[in-house]
């Protein structure tokens, strides 16, 4: 069960150190912003991995809890006048509830139908968000549609440095939490459910309950990332619920290595910073994500982490330290002969 942490602490600590140092090198404000959203997206990708990697429930509607929390933050602060911390807490709770609901609906389904159902649920939420308009407190103008709803923030313009460090701190905390969860007893059971539902059921595991649990936990973290995102951006838009966003999370997980938590985080950071930093047209960006994903699925089924482990085991560099070296590769690259 050691495949949760691929590079062990050392490399990870060095990476965090570099990220902590980065703002001090007085970079462009644009790059600080790219990194800040990257941290939130990375946490979102890791939360996809709890559902889609760890427990094998391939969700294509993971933007739903993310966007639900984002919209809840916006509606509660702007329309209902709640204070921001209370709204964020309520938004995360809502995301957990949404996740439990999706989990309950999809628990009886197998394989590709989970993907189909979650895709449909996410698209319904997106269409509703596009089609629904809210009236402002004074009734003067309408919010909603593609433009979305603004969030009432206690500050006017968030300064870039605190946002950067807050997002980085959130990413570290959330990843640590998810990593601990994936290595806990419950995480172990979820891996068993992902590996073979029939075997898990025969061992007396209530698999429907654990599938719901995976969705609830993953969606809770996705909701937290969504709340953080909306607080950073200042506005909840329909793009927060889009199929493209769900798809991005699956891409990060596939490229990084499903079921490893750390892999998707690293992949999200690298790909987001790369594609966003190049200032490409949004369409070209999604296109590049799709291409990256197809190449990863076709040629590196274990993702970066799986491939790195495989190469390490081939080269025999880390001899004898942990015998089940190839297990991660096999688990992530299903269907290997």
């Amino acid at each position, binding site marked *: 069960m050691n495949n949760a942490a691929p590079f062990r602490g050392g490399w990870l600590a060095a990476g965090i150190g570099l990220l902590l140092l980065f703002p001090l090198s007085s970079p462009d404000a644009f790059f600080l912003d790219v990194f800040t959203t990257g941290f939130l997206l990375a946490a979102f990708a890791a939360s996809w991995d709890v559902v*889609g990697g760890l427990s*094998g429930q*391939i969700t*294509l509607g993971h933007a739903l809890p993310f966007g639900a929390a984002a919209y809840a933050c916006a509606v509660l602060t702007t329309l209902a006048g709640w204070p921001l911390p209370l709204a964020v807490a309520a938004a995360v709770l809502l995301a957990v509830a949404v996740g439990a609901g999706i989990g309950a*609906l999809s628990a*009886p*389904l*197998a*394989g*590709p*139908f989970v*993907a*189909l*159902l979650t*895709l*449909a*649920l996410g*698209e*319904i939420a997106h*269409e*509703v968000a*596009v*089609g629904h308009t809210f009236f402002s407190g004074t009734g003067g103008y309408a919010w909603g549609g593609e433009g979305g709803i603004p969030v009432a923030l206690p500050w006017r313009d968030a300064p870039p440095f605190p946002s950067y460090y807050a997002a980085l701190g959130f990413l570290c905390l959330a990843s640590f939490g998810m990593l601990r969860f994936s290595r806990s007893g419950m995480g172990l059971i979820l891996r068993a459910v992902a590996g073979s539902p029939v075997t898990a059921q025969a061992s007396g595991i209530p698999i429907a309950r654990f599938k719901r649990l995976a969705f609830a936990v993953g969606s809770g973290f996705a909701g937290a990332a969504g709340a953080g995102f909306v607080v950073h951006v200042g506005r909840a838009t329909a793009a927060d619920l889009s*199929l*493209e966003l769900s*798809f991005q999370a*699956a*891409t990060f997980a*596939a490229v990084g290595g*499903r079921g490893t938590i750390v892999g998707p985080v690293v992949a999200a950071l690298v790909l987001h910073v790369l594609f966003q930093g190049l200032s490409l*047209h949004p*369409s*070209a960006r*999604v*296109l590049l*994500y*799709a*291409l990256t*994903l*197809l190449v990863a*699925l*076709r040629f590196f*089924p274990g993702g970066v982490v799986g491939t790195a482990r495989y190469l390490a085991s081939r080269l025999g560099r880390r001899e004898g330290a942990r015998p089940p070296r190839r297990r991660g590769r096999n688990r992530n690259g*299903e*269907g290997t002969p």
Partner: protein
Amino acid sequence: MASPLSQVLLDGLFAGGAYALMAAGMALILGVVKVINLSHGAFFTLGAYVAYALAARGIGSPIAAAPLAAVIAFAFGIFLGKSFVNPVRSHPFALPVGTLACALLFEQAAQLLWGPHPLSIETGAPWIGPGGLVVRRWGVVAFLSSAALLGGLKWVLSSRPGLPLRLIAEDEEIAGSLGMDVEAIRYLTFGGACAMAAAAGALLSPSGAVTPTMGRAPLLLSLVVVIVAGMDSVEAIFLLSIGLGIFGNACAWFLSPQWSYVALLAAVCLLLSVRPAGIVVLAGRRD
């Protein structure tokens, strides 16, 4: 001016015929390749853009656009089937996510090439039928050619040339042991089914706006059709598609086009919660 109801019925009938072509392609992929192809809608969109590009050059006829779209989609479909779908067929993760990636790839490519704005195709004045009923020419062409193609498909499947398809759908190991090239038949079928989706897109393109994401609703419609009608009967697929075409048109007319999409999405959710086994062919597979 005819009553809106009869107009909706007629246009729904026309659209439903082409949807049936697309759903039959989906059923063919499910039966023979045994995968859910989430990029099926992208091929529909591809067909529509081919029709638009031709119309913009003065060849505004679905009869010219459909074969061209079908050939282009066949080529892409074979590439996709041979280089991606066949090798990852047994990966429960790679297949839905990968075919969705293909769909998004094409949507974004279309957006880069033609822009996000809805485009429309001019196909000349319609006939005015009895009681002021507007009979659109593309609709007649779409319905008749879809019906003819589906009839042809039914004949092929029930005759000698369709035997490998039926055998692979039933038992691929036996088909392989009889010397059939199962892999080749799989990607050829995939390409053929993609061609059917593109032809449907080209035939239906004048009925509404051509947009990069226009294929999503027909994709869901095909999924609903194959979940409900199964894959064995071309007639059942045809009738159900027409029913859904009329329903979708009614939704679009009386509410808004967006709601017919939401209704289809809700139908997929509802069907999957009522029938957790989903599509029978895939339910038997362990993954």
